[in-house]
């Protein structure tokens, strides 16, 4: 069963859209590609002012007490505007891990500052091709090893990590003040990805063993649903851009939208956007339910394919203009790819989903 947005939710959507459309320009985003660790700073300022950083955290810890649905609405708009610094998703993931698995002291230490946007969180699971890596060593409360391409890693103050203690998977939280950060030169530099090198870094164990693994998947799933909204927003924007271009650009005496090759391609993008949207909203509405992981995986798959395809096809519809730096459609190409990789690629989610379906059938 899906949901209808209530008035408050609709207000979040329209207000976040209004603010972002007023502040974000392609001209401001393009230079971010050519330097590392630069984000569109006004976005983060706005995010803090508007309380977006606090949306899905409990009131007891400085949050607004709303949920995935509302955070998804903001994320959708961040996706449309391409402004989204990665911290909105990453800080949420980190905060949720602390909220769900930390003790009261840890919550008091991190949740209020994360909710206020005063600290930035990261979820550092990935190691090379392992979406949930366990190569980081955890011994006597200390971490040793490297996490690769951690989204938001250049600025995060705290990270949730997976590690290994002997044969056991550990979920732990580590303050990053003394960790070495190696910023990555990426095709989407404002994601602030960095390799994090832990060298006897103190960390607090949250969980151990199979529950740690399950919790890691759950944290990724939460982030995947937020990201699915962001991807849907990006794809939606591309749909509108393609349609507008097809209506105004003329060739051979008519708008190019009158050519079926263009017209049908745009109709197919529409289908992908609506499928992505439906999957994302549905998953957000399933938070806390048994089928949440499956719904999140499905949303993730649909939104990833949708955004990639919309980017590819919107650029193609634009012809030469589509591949210029200035037009900025490549910002969407890049964002589509970075979002596709960040929360675990499609291989990962396909396998997660099929495993869930098998369990359900068994």
């Amino acid at each position, binding site marked *: *069963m*899906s*949901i*209808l947005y209530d008035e408050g939710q609709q207000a979040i959507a329209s207000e976040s859209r209004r603010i972002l459309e007023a502040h974000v320009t392609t001209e401001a985003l393009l230079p971010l590609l050519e330097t590392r660790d630069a984000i569109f700073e006004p976005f983060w300022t706005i995010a803090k002012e508007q309380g977006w950083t606090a949306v899905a955290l409990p009131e007891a810890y400085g949050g607004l007490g709303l949920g995935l649905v509302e955070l998804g609405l903001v994320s959708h708009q961040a996706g449309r505007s391409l402004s989204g610094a990665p911290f909105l998703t990453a800080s949420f993931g980190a905060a949720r891990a602390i909220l769900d698995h930390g003790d009261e002291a840890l919550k008091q230490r991190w949740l209020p500052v994360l909710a206020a946007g005063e600290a930035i969180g990261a979820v550092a699971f990935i190691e090379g091709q392992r979406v949930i890596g366990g190569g980081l060593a955890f011994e006597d409360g200390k971490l040793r090893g490297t996490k690769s391409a951690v989204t938001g890693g250049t600025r995060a103050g705290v990270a949730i990590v997976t590690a290994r203690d002997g044969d056991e998977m550990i979920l732990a939280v580590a303050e990053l003040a003394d960790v070495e950060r190696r910023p990555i030169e990426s095709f989407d530099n404002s994601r602030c990805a960095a390799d994090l090198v832990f060298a006897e870094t103190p960390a607090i164990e949250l969980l151990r063993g199979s529950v740690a693994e399950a919790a890691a998947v759950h944290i990724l799933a939460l982030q995947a649903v937020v990201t699915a909204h962001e991807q849907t927003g990006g794809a939606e924007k591309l749909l509108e851009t393609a*349609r507008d271009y*097809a*209506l105004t650009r003329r060739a051979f005496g*008519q*708008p190019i*939208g*009158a050519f*079926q090759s263009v*017209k*049908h391609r*745009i*109709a*197919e993008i*529409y*289908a992908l956007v*609506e*499928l*992505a949207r*439906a*999957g994302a*909203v*549905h998953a957000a509405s399933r938070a806390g339910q048994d089928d949440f992981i*499956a*719904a999140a*995986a*499905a*949303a993730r*798959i*649909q939104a990833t*394919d949708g955004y990639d395809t919309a980017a590819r096809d919107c650029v193609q519809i634009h012809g030469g203009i589509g591949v210029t730096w200035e037009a900025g459609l490549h910002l969407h190409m890049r964002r589509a790819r970075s979002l596709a990789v960040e929360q675990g690629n499609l*291989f990962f*989610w*396909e*396998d997660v*989903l*099929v495993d869930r*379906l*098998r369990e359900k*059938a068994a």
Partner: protein
Amino acid sequence: MSDVEAYRERARAWLESVAPRFGRAARAGLSEEEDLALGRAYLKGRFAAGYSGINWPVEYGGQGLSPIEKVAFDSEEMAFGMPTAYFSISLGMPVPIIMRFCEDKAWVRERVHKALTGEEIWCQLFSEPAGGSDLAGLRTRAETDGNGWKINGQKLWTSWAQYSDYGVIVVRTDPTVPKHKGLTYFWVDMKAPGVTVRPIKLAGGDSHVNEVFFDDVKIGDDHRMSPVGGGFAVAMATLMIERYVATDSAGFGPRLDLFVALAEAAEINGRPAIEDGRIRQQIARNYAMRNSLDAITARAMTMMQAGMEPGPEGSLNKLVSVRSRQKLSELAIDLQGATGLHFDAHAPVKQDWGASWINAPTGRIAGGADEMLLNTIAEKILGLPQDHRPDKGVPFNRIPA
């Protein structure tokens, strides 16, 4: 539990109670005639149980409920494989349209009752050999004949005409005006002299569609359901009448569970198929797509319950689901290896991959071909330009054939 959920549960309980007599298992091995007879009996029972004409006016024998209850019932009913196909067009479009456009209300009430109880069947005579996707391009003509009309021509793809008692028909009454403007809408008695029905066998071996020939078929002017020359609008109204129908994210083919079960049992080059990335990818991608279609449907239902108009994205279901069903069915044949060659043309399409595969192309064409659906999305939802249509505004008899 909402009222609708309660309604749905009662409906399911009733369906389960009659399934042993009318459901998929009971129908296995029946000839089409036997199955039709069973279908008439089922409709009689369904009417008695109060699940017929769910959203039709009480004055015509309906239940006076909303489309929500109708869609809820239909969704539940679909799972049981009841013998309802023969009546789906009849109750879907022609009968609602006579309720709306025929003036003789007593006569209409009798027709509606007999249609709801399965005694009479109506068909819809729209498509023609030269027509295809171009409804307004039809050639069957009616000329004035005394006080009435005389119909000559040929209709095609008429579902269940071979069992129909009546039909609604669009014909050309004026070939000298542009094609949309020369059409008029009538009902006809399918048993009248001059009407010949010839079943068309389809690729899968079944024959539920027909050619219907009209040879000097005479009808009174009281059969007319539109102004003379105003038939196109009523035809469009007919096609729009079923706004809210039970959708099926499986594209009216097998559920994904069945594919997963197949993959659990099968192997690829000596390893379990379910562990092969190619299979996992297809399961995951199809699940994601169907999950989204189901969410769209659920949201539309929720909106209807809230008295709101559902969004246009509901129109994606057929396009997306049937196209994918076709490829998934092919894949299922491959996956079965030698076993995939086994075939039963009459197996239930929702249970059997071979039957699903052979009939999928019909699904991609009937009720709006993929290309027409894409055009509709592009034009009606996104506001893109209409295709170039050289016949636009040209008198019908001057369009080159």
